[in-house]
């Protein structure tokens, strides 16, 4: 499927297919990726046990939730929207999935129930934005409270234990070889699959193309026959469904439903997207960038913790990274 750079020989006047735009993006990617490598190197030197297989795998596991949510929210941000409700959606979907499992629904179906709940939340966001014409910030802000409220109401704000088998998704690993290799956790595998899939959707499919078009110029997109409302709804569904996936994974890792969990996770997800070069003005952003963005946050958190930097200081550092990343972008674009 990687036919982007291949076609030149087929084209007459092939020099036109050369790509200054693409190479610029490649440079951006290279710079942010370079930041990851530098961070990795710094912490490997300064923090004992940072550069170990076990730690790297645990870092990937910890980062997977932010990455999955970040990928989803990237879609909405590219359409010049936002989804603030995903933290609440994580809590609700996990809760409902656990309740379904407790009620005796087969475990794997209970996981799908969680995804379906996420899908419904996304549909609700999409309809509020396209039918009632609410600004995405307002629509999803309102939904943040509504969804959290539903999660608290149906559980009476109590955490409940799930059946043991429910924990498989979050805690099992593959490629485990005795004591030598601890294995790769399912959530990490899921993260990789989702990232590849949605990178493909965004760069290679019509839905992805229209996502950029809507964010770049909504009126031009509409007058080009693109069903703008449908594209927006699809984007909010993608976003909330990925949040639902995270909800199920988190509930599975803890083997409990936690209606109070995931508060503020949406901000980490948005920060990942922004560090990865997604523009809140719309029209610009990539899945790859967001993955790198969330790993920058993840590496900082883990690395600083292992160095013994306290939590409060970590918050300051992460905040500065967000500001620095965007400021750097602004300066380069001048």
């Amino acid at each position, binding site marked *: 499927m990687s*036919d982007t750079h291949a076609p030149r020989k*087929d*084209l007459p006047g092939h020099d036109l297919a050369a790509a200054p735009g693409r190479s610029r993006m490649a440079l951006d990617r290279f710079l942010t990726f370079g930041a990851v490598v530098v961070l990795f190197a710094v912490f490997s030197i300064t923090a004992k046990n940072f550069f170990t297989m076990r730690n790297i795998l645990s870092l990937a596991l910890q980062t997977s939730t932010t990455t999955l949510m970040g990928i989803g929210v990237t879609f909405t941000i590219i359409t010049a929207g936002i989804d603030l409700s995903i933290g609440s959606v994580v809590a609700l979907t996990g809760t409902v999935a656990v309740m379904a499992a407790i009620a005796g629904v087969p475990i794997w179906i209970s996981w799908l129930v969680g995804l379906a709940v996420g899908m419904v939340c996304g549909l609700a966001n999409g309809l509020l934005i396209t039918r009632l014409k609410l600004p995405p910030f307002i629509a999803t802000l309102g939904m943040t409270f509504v969804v959290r409220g539903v999660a608290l109401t149906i559980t009476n704000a109590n955490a409940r234990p799930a059946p043991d088998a429910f924990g498989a998704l979050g805690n099992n690993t593959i490629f485990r070889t005795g004591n030598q290799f601890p294995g790769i956790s399912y959530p990490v595998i899921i993260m990789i699959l989702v990232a590849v899939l949605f990178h493909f959707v965004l760069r290679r*499919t019509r839905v992805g193309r229209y996502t950029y*078009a809507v964010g770049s*110029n909504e*009126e*031009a997109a509409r*007058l080009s026959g*693109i069903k703008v409302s449908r594209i927006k709804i699809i984007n909010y569904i993608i976003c909330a469904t990925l949040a639902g996936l995270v909800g199920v994974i988190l509930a599975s890792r803890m083997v409990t439903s936690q209606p109070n969990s995931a508060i503020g996770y949406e901000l980490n997800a948005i920060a990942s997207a922004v560090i990865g070069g997604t523009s809140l003005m719309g029209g610009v952003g990539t899945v790859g960038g967001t993955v790198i963005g969330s790993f920058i946050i993840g590496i900082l958190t883990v690395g600083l913790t292992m160095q013994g930097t306290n939590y409060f200081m970590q918050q300051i550092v992460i905040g500065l990274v967000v500001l620095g990343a965007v400021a750097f972008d602004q300066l380069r674009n001048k």
Partner: protein
Amino acid sequence: MQEVILEVEGVSKSFPGVKALDQVSFDLRKGEVHALVGENGAGKSTLMKILSGVHQPDEGVIRFKGREVRFHDSTQARDAGIGIIYQELNLIPHLSVAANIFIGREPLTRLSTLNEKKMNEEAVAVLGRLNLRIDPTITLNRLPIAKQQMVEIAKSLSFDSEVLIMDEPTSALTESEIDELFTVIHTLRDRGVAIIYISHRLEELKHIVDRISIFRDGRSVSTDAYASITMDTIVNRMVGRTLEQKFPTRHNVPTEEKILEVRNIVRRGVLHDISFDLYRGEILGFAGLMGAGRSELARAIFGADPIDSGAVVMNGKKLAVLSPSESIRAGIAYLSENRKQEGLAVRMQLAENVTLANTGGVSSRLGVISRRRELKACQRYVEELAIRTPSLVQVVNNLSGGNQQKVVVAKWLFCDSKILIFDEPTRGIDVGTKFAIYELIERLAREGVGIIMISSELPEILGMTDRVIVLHEGSLEATLVTKNTTQEEILNFAAGLGGAAGKPSHGLPRAAEERTQP
């Protein structure tokens, strides 16, 4: 002769890769309106930016009121007395008129709070100098664009500007608003303000201009008293060659085959019961004054705006729903007059824009876009339409206006459109490129496409169309056969005066045998 207030001597300015200005000289007298014309890229804007302090010259001298000056930013130029009114207004829509005029230097009370009373009084005084009666407390965005522009002029005057630069001031105004603007310009001139007037609309210059300077390729070609120069000379000097024809020779032959029937379109308060037909291979003009409903009619047919009643019949089949996606599927394309706002995703690539309305044409059945097929399709149109671009993946924002227009045309050709509605296709496009656009439109008609062309320039309507529909305040006033009509007749209908200048020439498109006669 009035004294010279501003003098430019041997000014050059280079940007990476281009010499924007090459040894330009120019002078401006007190109390004159001095037109500056030239094609896009002739150097007008660069000179204006140098005069207003945005850019600094590489070499050369600028003398203002006899003293050599060098402005480092636009504030310095403004404080010295050189004001500039850009095409896009630099005002804040949600603040009052007075607040806009005095923004950044609001009069204060002794307690350092805003002195609204004083500000409003001074605003009235400033507006009064232009003989304008505008309530200073009204929120700016409640004024029509023309009045907002007057506010901007007033703001500029309040800095005691002695030189005022106006960049395409009429581009967003209606006919009657243009008259108002000209009145204001006359008032300014009589007060001794020197005005540099930049415009693409050569026809309007005769109402206000005293002298005219022509720029080409970064050089100042000539300066003449307007009265002593003909329009042909102006155009020739602008393009640097004799434009034998303004319009291509027409070979398209309208057929008898109705491709589009518009029936009783009503949009309450905007369009009143409009019906007309379009034939294959025909170029049909929409004429009328600003606000007559030409764009609105086009948008209604295309499904961009909702209608209250009426029908659009394409090739004998009524379109069930009027929406852009349905119209595009049926083969109707609308090329908006606002290319950047409505026609292009300017931050996306040329190739992505070309396929935007028909990504299905380069996708698999699962909706996966083949980049190879996309670039191949795009390559074809770049060659066919002679789009000048460094690459197929160039971001559209970096292309010139004429080339952007071609990208929009490519987008619709790639949809295999049977009907193309051009809304002001040559607005903001320089003289040389205009001809290429005309040729393209003629060629499309020749190939059997039905063309609707909306234009505010009557010569364009007369030179390019087979028939013309004249609208007035949302009603269809007349359907005229172009070769049997005149500018005066169209104007009379457009003004709602009926066919006072001659009998209306209702009729079918000219038949083939008619065309062979001299």
